[in-house]
């Protein structure tokens, strides 16, 4: 399969054949093929995409969390961007799961670079990556007791007493 043969349709087709029923849906916002997959299979799919001789999605560009509180049962999500540097195709994988069970398998078994990206996602969204070698907070202080990018937390800490709003009308 040469680069010109790889279309978005062929990626979806081969993935559906390899993982029947696991590609829940797909769309192409701004020309970037995005697949929704179940969390149990997301790492298998990423691993297969990386190792497949035709596709070679050998580069994990980005990994981040998202929070949609109004999507009941699917509140939290992890977004993976992988890139086939050989064929210059980018691919986005989304996986959503309930906020009361924020557990996803780790991608560090496939890409070493996922380590800090997953620590960052854990830090800000409280998503736990099973199998991660060192899942600790990374940017926030260690004794913080909440995950600040979740939508229920306001921008400013409401419990602060050191700010005098009297003159500046914050």
């Amino acid at each position, binding site marked *: 399969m040469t680069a010109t043969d790889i279309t978005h349709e062929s990626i979806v087709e081969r993935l559906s054949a390899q993982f029947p029923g696991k590609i829940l849906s797909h769309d192409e916002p701004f020309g970037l093929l995005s697949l929704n997959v179940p969390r149990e299979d997301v790492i298998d799919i990423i691993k297969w995409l990386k190792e497949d001789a035709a596709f070679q999605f050998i580069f994990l*560009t980005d990994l981040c969390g998202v929070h949609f509180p109004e999507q009941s049962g699917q509140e939290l999500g992890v977004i993976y961007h992988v890139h086939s*540097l050989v064929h210059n195709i*980018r691919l986005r994988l989304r996986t959503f799961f309930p906020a009361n069970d924020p557990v996803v398998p780790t991608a560090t078994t496939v*890409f070493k670079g996922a380590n800090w990206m997953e620590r960052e996602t854990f830090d800000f969204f409280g998503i736990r990556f099973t199998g991660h070698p060192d899942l600790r907070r990374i*940017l*926030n202080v260690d004794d913080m007791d909440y995950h*600040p990018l979740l939508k229920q937390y306001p921008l400013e800490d409401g419990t602060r007493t050191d700010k005098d709003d009297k003159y500046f009308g914050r």
Partner: protein
Amino acid sequence: MDTLQTTPPGLQEEKQYNTLNLGPTHPATHGIFQNVLQMDGEYIVSGEATIGYIHRAFEKLAEHRPFYQVTPITDRLNYCSSPINNIGWHLTVEKLLGVKTPKRVDYMRVIIMELARITDHLICNSVVGVDTGALTGFVYVFQQREHVYEIYEEICGSRLTTNIGRIGGFERDFDDKVMRKIRKFLDEFPKVWKEFEGLLSRNRIFMDRTIGVGGISVEDALSYGFTGPNLRAAGLDYDVRVMNPYSSYEDFDFIIPVGQSGDVYDRFCVRNEEIWQSLSIIEQAYAKLMAMPQGEYFAPVPEFYLPPKQDVYTKMEALIWHFKIVMGEVDIPKGEVYHAVEGGNGELGFYLISDGGRQPYRLHFRRPCFIYYQAFPEMIKGSMLSDAILTMSSMNVIAGELDA
């Protein structure tokens, strides 16, 4: 390395290592980085990087700011080349809005982004010089950075954190004064940079100090998510400007320099060559701009492009648009967009989710040095402490971008 291996295995178990706290504020690390190192004499047995000392919650802040107020946040990521961050963010928004910018805007942006790349690489390479003991080159080339900052100042009024440009273009055209300053820089800088290169690149002391230090294989570099000059020094020619051209980079001729071993010396050489390529790109863009009529410096998107100030004071329509944009009254289309630009130290990506509100629903910055800095403890394992300092400065880790 040698002393570690020659120690008999029995003795090694009884050996006590020293714990060395390198940082958070250490004059040799050029920024707020903490590394807790286990030392065997002068050799590093293992290291652990602690980051987050200047974390400013940019992603949370961005969820509460209209698009224009996100631009100053991007300034403070990689502050050595903030125009690239600004323009990268504007390009992301333009992708979401479907704005097509005129060619003149693209070429103006290319000039600014390449000037920013030159200053970024200039700082990194001259700091590598400082860490090997050559302070002169650093002070010498900083005058040239000053000239670039004067160009920024002429264009947008600020120097380090530039907040340059607008969604759709620029706030004003490049006038003759700007073009004269760019011309002056293009004429003067090559001589200075040649001299700087002559001081270091074939200098025996510098070569002995940098070759084979802090190397990484291309497989490891890929697995760790390296991008930019660090990945290219390891031998893979991935450059966003070529792979996914933005801002009309496809109109320019340039080559992507690659190294072989990914060590400090290769990174130094790749950055040097990229500076020459950037200069060539600026020359081409300069010629293209000179052949163009002035005037078309923004795209026709009144909903997002802030109108000129004199129009705001005299024209009703401009006043209305100004008010709507500043107060965030303009609806943003829903969408999910990822856009990447080649930043000073790698692929700088913006992952933006818009729910149609006035501010981003979610904005994630793919910060290149956050991703590749995690390889640092592995890269310095077994090396000497002074080499670890050198490895860090040659990786171009910028604290602002690391901690976002």
